[in-house]
């Protein structure tokens, strides 16, 4: 396997409860993505973040807002993948 860095949309949340609500929201609406540990580039410390494709930003933001899921930040960074 080789390391590659892929642009990804990373969504962070003020609480773990909000992160879990995001996952539930996305699963219910059929939106792609998955939970990852918060990358240090986005926020030092710990916690969960939602990782998805950058082009999903608008639809995801609308869905989270409609469901009242609080978001801390949405950031596009290059994340490690193995291919």
């Amino acid at each position: 396997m080789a390391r590659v860095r892929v642009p990804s949309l990373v969504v962070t949340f003020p609480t773990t409860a909000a992160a879990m609500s995001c996952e539930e929201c996305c699963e219910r609406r059929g939106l792609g993505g998955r939970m990852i540990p918060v990358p240090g580039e986005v926020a030092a410390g710990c916690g969960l973040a939602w990782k998805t494709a950058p082009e999903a930003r608008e639809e995801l933001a609308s869905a989270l807002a409609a469901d009242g899921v609080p978001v801390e930040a949405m950031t596009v960074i290059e994340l490690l993948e193995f291919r």
Partner: protein
Amino acid sequence: MIYLDNAATTMHKPQEVVDAVVAAMGSLGNAGRGASAGALDAGRVVLRAREAVAALLGCPRADHVCFSANATAALNAALSGLVGPGDRVVTTVLEHNSVLRPLARLADERGVEVAYAGCDAHGFLDLDELERLVTPGTRLVAVTHGSNVTGNLVDVARVARLAHAAGALCLVDASQTAGAVPLDMAAMGIDVVCFTGHKGLMGPQGTGGMAVAEGVDVRPWAEGGSGVRSFERRHPLEWPTRMEAGTLNAHGLAGLLAGVEFVEKNGGPAAVGAREHALVRRLWEGVRDVPGVTVYGGWSVAPERCGGIVALNVDGLDSAEVADALSAGWGIACRAGAHCAPLMHHALGTERQGIVRLSCGWFNTEDEVDVAAAAVREIAAG
């Protein structure tokens, strides 16, 4: 899944624990609330759990084992109940936020003076500095038995001796060690041990507590229902009721009892810990010389003072990325980032990168740790 996050919780529980919780949920009433058969059964289970925990921790009095929701609740209660306005407390940079934050609150709200002993390059507590900080008049020395970041163990018997020499009490946070590292609070002279039930004791989440030596006065933290003396204005001060306001988690404690019995059945903390230690040592040996991998903690200098954790980083990679790669590529569950122990990360210089923590438990196998070591090698080589 290869579960190597036992320092967070032992996800795989003995079947006896699962069975005990299920049975309890179908049969137990509220311990200490009436004399119905279910209430009495709950009370019997709770008593047996107290006796089992007391025996495991070397607490001479089972009625000085007080249960709570987790170690954090126990630590908050113990620290708040032991420390008064203007007191001096000495703690260490190895501590978890469950010690650091209650002490910060006590500093803010009660003017408590808090001093922090540091560590060496391997993350071992600097006991000489601790001794210098424990000046006459110090009220309490609060130390972890094992770092939740590196797994490094602390000589708590020595800490208790130096605390008592200065007239201070000694509180030990055994969250990472209870059930996996022998602890005898009577023999070691420890005044208070706080523990969680869902790690080395293999019980359910939502269980924990404190064991308190006789003669140590911990003021009640919460007041409320006690099942006795309903017309008294304040909460009773008798042990263990003084630290157990409200309904106990008898269902969870039934599981905790089964977990402690499982540990004892398998030779006790020394034997359980030895098995875990061997697995972690094998993992460490598999990653220690990998180019680009930094391993933290004391394995290279004093493995006998190391617990069930291998803490590492891969050069140039964020710890969260490594953990995600281990999960996505090999199905390995571990923990990355900061580990609620900010001073330990400051000491190791890992505030930004965090740390990848791989932690073994009773149910892990040599094959699993070999896969994890190979995965780390492959990630580092990528």
